[in-house]
């Protein structure tokens, strides 16, 4: 073979060759904890990472591996490791790199749990974070110190919808020999596969668009394989002998997948954030239609934007595709297939009107998720971001009247009709 399959084909096939014994076309669910070794030598070889294969499902599993390899293919990356949730992916990835005394520079425009992890949890273990405006490159640069290991940001910020200039930040990270880690949940590999732009590690919540049907929680850590661990002495647990496996040097032994090798040997082995094979199967079903769904998500988003902008009850609308969005041009250049299907907007009448709208819509579901096939609405200030302080809320671009809308795949006329009656009810307050 010499022709590389395209994205739509990879969504369906990557990671799986039907096994010759059963011929099962669907990915089999390997609901097992462990795997029979061929002999003692084979067991030792698996433990020593001499050979490929599976030894215990906390570390790897054949069904989960299909998912991991499919995501690696879609993100055009070197490797991927699936985890039990997006938060497990982020926490495990950060701890694979950072030790006490290390420093992270992170965007202030992050999902609430991401903020809490960086702001409150990690400092208890001696890992500190400086939050910066991701659009202010001078601020990012000046926040980087000698012990900074990572710059972390969402590509499309949740829920502020700020767009990260990936090319510019990648250059900055390279100049400072720090790891460039992004959360790519809102863009998915369909809208942007950023390894080629210089991103080193991508975190996805698979629960969202990639799974796409709201049936399984999952996450993944994608390794671009493009960080030169030998260019700096900042990452001794990867580029110097490590306690695991008789002082293995992950960088020398595994090169482009040094991070993944360490993640598998340490995070999966010691922390245990493994994804259940059944959940991997559910997410794989979603991934098969990712390109089709994303096209429809984007089409419906554009139609709903037209409706919201022209509606007299709406005080403001934010989406990166709108000309008034401060990074409209960057979004158009960086995300040519679309800037995601999250819209935020404010309803005239403030918090009470917003509450009335959410309680009146019937087709749209009021819940704490995004990226479902169904249209979802929520009031972030009282839910997803309610546990972060007012200053952080302001930094994240949150206002009291903000409604976050995750545009689904229903017929657009039905979504608009649902919104019309919700807005009508809100206007009567």
């Amino acid at each position: 073979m010499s022709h590389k399959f395209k994205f739509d084909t990879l969504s369906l096939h990557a990671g799986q060759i039907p096994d010759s014994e059963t011929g099962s076309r669907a990915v089999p669910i390997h609901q097992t904890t462990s795997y029979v070794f061929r002999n003692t030598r084979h067991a030792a070889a698996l433990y020593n990472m001499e050979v490929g294969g599976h030894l215990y499902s906390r570390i790897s599993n054949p069904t989960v591996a299909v998912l991991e390899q499919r995501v690696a293919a879609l993100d055009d990356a070197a490797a991927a490791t699936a985890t039990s949730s997006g938060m497990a992916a982020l926490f495990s990835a950060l701890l694979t790199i950072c030790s006490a005394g290390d420093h992270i520079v992170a965007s202030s425009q992050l999902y609430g749990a991401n903020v809490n992890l960086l702001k409150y949890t990690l400092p208890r273990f001696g890992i500190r974070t400086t939050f910066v405006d991701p659009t202010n490159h001078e601020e990012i640069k000046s926040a980087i110190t000698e012990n900074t290991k990572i710059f972390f940001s969402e590509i499309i910020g949740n829920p502020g919808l700020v767009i990260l200039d990936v090319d510019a930040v990648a250059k900055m990270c390279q100049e400072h020999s720090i790891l460039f880690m992004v959360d790519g949940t809102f863009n998915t590999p369909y809208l942007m596969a950023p390894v080629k732009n210089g991103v080193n590690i991508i975190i996805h919540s698979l629960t969202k668009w990639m799974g796409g049907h709201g049936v399984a929680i999952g996450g993944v850590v994608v390794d671009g394989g493009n960080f030169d661990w030998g260019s700096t002495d900042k990452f001794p647990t990867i580029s110097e002998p490590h306690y695991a496996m008789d002082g293995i040097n992950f960088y020398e032994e595994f090169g482009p997948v040094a991070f993944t090798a360490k993640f598998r040997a340490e995070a999966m082995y010691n922390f245990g954030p493994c994804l259940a094979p059944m959940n991997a199967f559910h997410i794989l079903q979603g991934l098969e239609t990712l390109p089709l769904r994303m096209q429809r998500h984007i089409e419906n988003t554009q139609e709903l934007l037209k409706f919201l902008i022209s509606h007299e009850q709406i005080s403001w609308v934010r989406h990166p595709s709108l000309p008034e969005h401060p990074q409209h041009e960057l979004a158009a250049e960086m995300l040519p297939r679309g800037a995601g299907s999250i819209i935020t907007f404010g309803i005239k009448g403030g918090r009470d009107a917003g509450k009335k709208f959410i309680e009146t819509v019937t087709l749209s579901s009021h819940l704490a998720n995004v990226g479902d096939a169904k249209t979802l609405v929520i009031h972030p200030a009282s839910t997803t971001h309610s546990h972060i302080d007012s200053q952080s809320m302001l930094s994240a671009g949150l206002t009291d009247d903000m409604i976050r809308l995750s545009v689904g795949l229903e017929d657009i006329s039905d979504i608009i009709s649902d919104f019309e009656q919700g807005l009508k009810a809100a206007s009567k307050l």
Partner: protein
Amino acid sequence: MKLTVNGHSTYISTGGKKPSMGNQAIFFLPGSGQSHLTFVLQTRFFAFEGYDVYAPDFPGHGLSKGNPLETIEEMADWIAVLMVKCNLKSAIIVGHSQGCLVAMSLAHKYPDLAEKLILIAGALQIKVNDYLLDKSNSSMPLAVKMMTEWGHGRNGHFFAASQPGHSLLGIGRELMMANAQDALSADLLACNQFDANNIAAEIEVPVLCILAQDDKMTPVKLGVKMSDSFKNSMCVKIAQSGHMLPIEKPDDVNSSIQKFLN
């Protein structure tokens, strides 16, 4: 481990185990634009099997410094120097693709150094098309893309991998891009110029040729011709694999080597 060879820092993977100097030594020589990482699923395996493993990065490749070598003969000379540095009188030589050419040149020029040859996805001549030669000079990312896509068979293109979560195409790309800018073009030129047709018959040591049925870069018929040229050789063909046999079918490659050596 790192040694200084011809004045330059040289990295040699030993498969995660320090050579004991008492075990059978086995050298792994990578293909064009490749490094010790091509053999990641051989080096650790054979080191833990009890061999003293040496998988060097040629100058300008992987973790080794220095300018890339320009001919296959120079590469064979360099291996001979390295073997002296490692206090080795002889070793089993395993080559992949271009590494097969180096292995044959070494066995011909320094017959005492090579005890046995294991030639994976090789041929007596590896001609490189002009377009790829040109792109290896003018556009390394494009040349790397062409080579990784042509180099991998079914497993690579379907993103099936023996190591969970790995993308063979992605790893292959990053591995090659990590070399010095002129490493790939130097390798391809060296391959293009070398011809083992006149030396193969003079190689006395036992040879195992491991060939990939779906190899687009060194098609299996050229591998069979190579195998037939030696006085003492055997040939194994592995189904459903492209040129990157060591990572596409590591278990088959390892068991073929084990059978040959035992």
